[in-house]
């Protein structure tokens, strides 16, 4: 049984990764799961300098999901390189660094700083709905997507994953723009912009007013977008949005994703990633499928 998948030349032991921002840099969850069993660990978004993030409350529960407005708090690339990369290098898993920035220059700085680090792929987050500058502003316009992708490709030594926002009219347009800019891989979806009001306090549940909706509630939207993008571009896709078990992951794979990320589910089930890995193996065994490759995009 072969569960290996190929993301722009990087071979993952299996298609199961973590979603950026839901797994720290792996240290906390290494108390619960064996990181060696994961296809890749995707780290929390890191910028050129430390960011404080948004005021609290930063999260709110919603029906079958949650809103977050962390605001990309991060320790900055220096601490990240010194502390988090060496930690992850101890494991037999691929390292994918999620990169954020307020300006194109910020992104460039991080990507350049990582050029000679032993990380496998860079995921460029142009889709965070929770910061005023940067993030989603880049991710809702095909021209700026193509532009920033080109800038990243010029500077990066690792293959580049562009992470797309679902808060758009036509996701395929954004995917094609990233492809045109030279992206190696696409990942989708980031969170959908949402809001919650506490009717007893008559106030927003989040200090930031709006936040990003994630969790099982959004899965049907994510699967649809992965399917659309898989049929619009030639790039491998990392699918995510509400995955909590192997069935969910397989939906994305059958829709056309080469790999999948588990996000919000980690919060309520720290063993979720491993359960997905094992569940996929069981599915392959039960259905006598010897290569996961045969499932990618098999539903047309």
């Amino acid at each position, binding site marked *: 049984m072969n569960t290996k998948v190929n993301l722009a030349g990087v071979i993952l032991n299996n298609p199961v990764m973590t979603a950026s921002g839901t797994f720290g840099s792996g240290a906390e969850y290494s108390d619960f799961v064996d990181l060696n069993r994961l296809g890749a660990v995707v780290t929390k978004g890191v910028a050129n300098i430390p960011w404080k993030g948004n005021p609290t409350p930063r999260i709110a529960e919603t029906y079958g999901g949650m809103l977050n407005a962390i605001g990309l*708090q991060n*320790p900055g690339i220096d601490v990240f390189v010194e502390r988090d990369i060496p930690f992850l290098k101890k494991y037999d898993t691929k390292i994918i660094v999620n990169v954020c920035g307020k300006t194109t220059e910020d992104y460039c700085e991080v990507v350049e700083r990582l050029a000679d680090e032993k990380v496998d792929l860079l995921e460029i987050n142009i889709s965070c709905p929770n910061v005023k500058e940067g993030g989603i502003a880049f991710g809702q316009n095909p021209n700026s997507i193509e532009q920033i992708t080109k800038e990243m490709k010029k500077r990066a030594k690792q293959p580049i994953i562009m992470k797309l926002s679902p808060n758009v009219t036509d996701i395929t347009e954004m995917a094609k723009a990233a492809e045109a800019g030279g992206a190696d891989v696409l990942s989708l979806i980031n969170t959908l912009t949402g809001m919650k009001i506490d009717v007893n306090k008559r106030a927003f549940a989040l200090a930031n007013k709006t936040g990003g909706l994630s969790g099982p509630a959004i899965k049907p939207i994510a699967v649809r977008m992965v399917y659309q993008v898989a049929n619009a571009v030639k790039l491998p896709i990392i699918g995510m949005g509400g995955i909590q078990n192997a069935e969910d992951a397989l939906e994305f794979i059958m829709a056309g994703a080469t790999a999948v990320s588990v996000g919000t589910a980690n919060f309520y089930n720290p063993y979720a990633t491993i359960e997905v890995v094992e569940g996929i193996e069981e599915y392959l065994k039960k259905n006598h499928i010897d290569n996961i490759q045969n499932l990618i995009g098999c539903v047309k």
Partner: protein
Amino acid sequence: MSNSKKKTVLIQSMDALTDDVFSMWLKDEEIAANATPGQFVSLYCNEGSRLLPRPISICEIDKAVGAIRLVYRVVGKGTEEFSKMKKGDTIEVMGPLGNGFPLDNEGKKVILIGGGIGIPPMLELSKHLTGEKQVVLGYRDELFLEKEFESYGKVYISTEDGSVGTKGNVIDAIKENGLDAEVIYACGPTPMLRGIKAYAIEHGITAWLSLEEKMACGIGACLACVCKSKEVDHHTNVDNKRICKEGPVFNALEVEL
């Protein structure tokens, strides 16, 4: 590996202390063995529409039996779900989490302060401190747990409506009773903690405060539950500390409230 696990555990008892405050004992040897006063656990709902943990402080630890006690108030759908569970049911729990109160106080004179649903963690703590213990409990109206503190220290009560003890808040009770101490331990609503911090600074008292914030992971990975810290935090590299990981107990001087 840390000592924290997520698991399904048995509910040994479920009792109503007031209309909306419930006490439950959860049977788990590992959690009981590892827990210290001031730590908390994450409780999970069975109802699949509610995904996030409900953080609840550990109220008592029975290492002999291998069980922990939680005391919680019904304030929303999750705690309501818990309150309908019965002895013999099981519940998903992760813990113990966070860092409890420092116990190395070498017989110092202390005040333990609990405000409302911040009272429960003070109970286990009161068993572990060796010096003179004054316990100040602040309630809106209906009392709970107050009798259980009596074997560990002298209990002073404040109620907002003045029905029992000092009319007002816990600081009013401290003043009215002329209490003093070398160390304060406190848990309760943020305005109360803010008052205690000011009081402690004014009187040169060391104060340890247990803070609260909405949580998603409960283990330090998501950065949901931060509070402002006085200095740049070692882990986050900004002036934010994670309440679930570095806390929930902080020295009052470390944090901005």
